[in-house]
């Protein structure tokens, strides 16, 4: 991909090549006049052709045929030097122009195009060797000119070639300086841009750092809220439990115990949210295990051997799902403890939570005494009403079966939020 410097450098080069074409055309036209004066009309015409060729090369540049123009210059210069070296002889000094050939090659092509520079220089070298060979071995006869005329031609060729040489050297020196200046300016601009970018990156990093700090503070705050809610619920649960000790009526004490367990199930939930790193989801398995432990503890005075079997998949619940689920589970287990094993010393409760995509299948079953669900009046039971209410809150499809002597069978299909 060409950079701005490359494009500007190329444009400068084209301008210089055009100036070279005009200069060489001007020099050639001097030779046209001299050849006409000497009566060498045919050769004057050839030189006119060379002059036109140089002008044509400048024209080709204007039409953006740069490659053709360069080739034209190499061919024209080689031809002119060769033709008039052979015509006038070695002593006329036409070959002196070939000493500027490396400069001409470097003028035509960028340093990156080394192959083309070598080819161009190579053509000039071959032309020089051929001219030298023709002169050395007298292969082609040149026209007869007086020593005086030859001397004039030599001085003219020497002067023109030297002028061309110095002009090209000055051009390269100036171009190098301009190029260096361009590079320095570009470098300065790049450095300024780099500094700007560094500042922007530093600002962005700072802003990101601030954001992370705020996020961390919010996480800590949320964690603290869960902790305090848990503690406050624990205090309420504890006070209810203490109140229970002062109640003589067994039924009232049992009701208070159920209330305490409901509060406890929410407290344990907030404790799990406090512990978890994500703060907005909990892994339900560990919560269920802990809830079961506390409910079993609260009913330990019954002295019955009731085993709770669990089969729980790895499922993450948000607070919105976990809260009604925790109360639902508490209700089902409590109901089983209260009513299912009245006439039994032993029993089993089966709890399963199976995940299928974003759907959950919750299954609760006990092998207790069961009851006649079909004729059961729900209005008399807060527990049953709560089971239905929490199932609805989970927006699940509930199926409740209970038969005397078989136990209860509850299933809920619901989608996680």
């Amino acid at each position: 991909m060409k950079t701005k410097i490359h494009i500007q450098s190329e444009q400068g080069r084209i301008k210089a090549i055009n100036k070279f074409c005009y200069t060489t055309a001007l020099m050639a036209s001097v030779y046209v006049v001299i050849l006409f004066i000497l009566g060498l009309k045919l050769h004057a015409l050839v030189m006119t052709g060379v002059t036109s060729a140089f002008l044509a090369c400048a024209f080709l540049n204007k039409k953006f045929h740069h490659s053709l123009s360069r080739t034209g210059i190499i061919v024209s210069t080689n031809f002119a030097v060769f033709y008039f070296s052979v015509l006038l002889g070695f002593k006329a000094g036409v070959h002196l122009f070939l000493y500027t050939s490396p400069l001409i090659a470097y003028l035509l092509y960028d340093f990156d195009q080394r192959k083309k520079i070598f080819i161009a220089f190579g053509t000039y070298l071959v032309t020089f060797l051929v001219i030298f060979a023709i002169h050395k071995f007298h292969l082609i006869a040149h026209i007869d000119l007086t020593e005086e005329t030859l001397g004039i031609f030599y001085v003219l060729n020497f002067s023109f070639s030297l002028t061309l040489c110095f002009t090209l050297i000055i051009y390269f020196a100036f171009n190098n300086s301009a190029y260096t200046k361009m590079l320095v300016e570009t470098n300065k601009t790049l450095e300024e841009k780099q500094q700007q970018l560094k500042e922007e990156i530093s600002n962005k990093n700072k802003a990101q750092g601030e954001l992370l700090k705020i996020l961390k503070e919010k996480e800590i705050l949320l964690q603290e809220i869960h902790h305090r809610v848990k503690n406050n619920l624990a205090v309420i649960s504890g006070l209810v439990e203490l109140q229970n000790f002062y109640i003589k009526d067994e039924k009232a004490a049992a009701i208070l115990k159920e209330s305490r367990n409901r509060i406890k199930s929410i407290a344990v939930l907030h404790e799990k949210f406090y512990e978890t790193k994500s703060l907005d989801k909990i892994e339900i398995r560990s919560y269920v295990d802990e809830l079961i432990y506390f409910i079993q503890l609260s009913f330990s005075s019954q002295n019955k051997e009731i085993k709770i079997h669990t089969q729980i998949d790895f499922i993450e619940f948000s607070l919105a799902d976990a809260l009604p689920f925790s109360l639902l589970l508490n209700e089902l287990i409590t109901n089983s403890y209260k009513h299912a094993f009245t006439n039994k010393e032993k029993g089993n409760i089966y709890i399963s939570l199976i995940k299928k995509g974003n759907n959950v299948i919750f299954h609760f079953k006990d092998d207790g005494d069961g009851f006649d669900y079909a004729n059961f009046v729900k209005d008399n039971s807060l527990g049953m009403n709560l089971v239905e209410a929490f199932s609805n809150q989970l927006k699940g499809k509930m199926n409740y079966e209970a038969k005397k002597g078989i136990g209860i069978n509850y299933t809920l299909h619901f989608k996680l939020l």
Partner: protein
Amino acid sequence: MLSMINRKYIEMMGHRVIDAVTNGPDAIEAVKKHAPDIILMDLRLDGQMDGIDAMIEIAKFSTAPAIYLTGNSDEENKTRASKTNMLAFCVKPVHFEQLQQLFSKV
């Protein structure tokens, strides 16, 4: 507030709360003075010393086991506590039945 509730639980079980302190050095002094049967030790205490550090010092002159109480189930501290004379490592709040079960072990 929760310590008040725990105190009530202990009294309801028929036991006596000999002393209640808030920092490690006071806990060590209280155990030296009263020689309790069980120590209900909060993990977080006032001052530099935590409950486990206090129990390490207490173990030098007393065999009374500790029921550690903590705000969250910290595995690192649980491991530290298990190296002391630990009866249980409980997350607050403690159920009455839980305490009853633990006290019956001693």
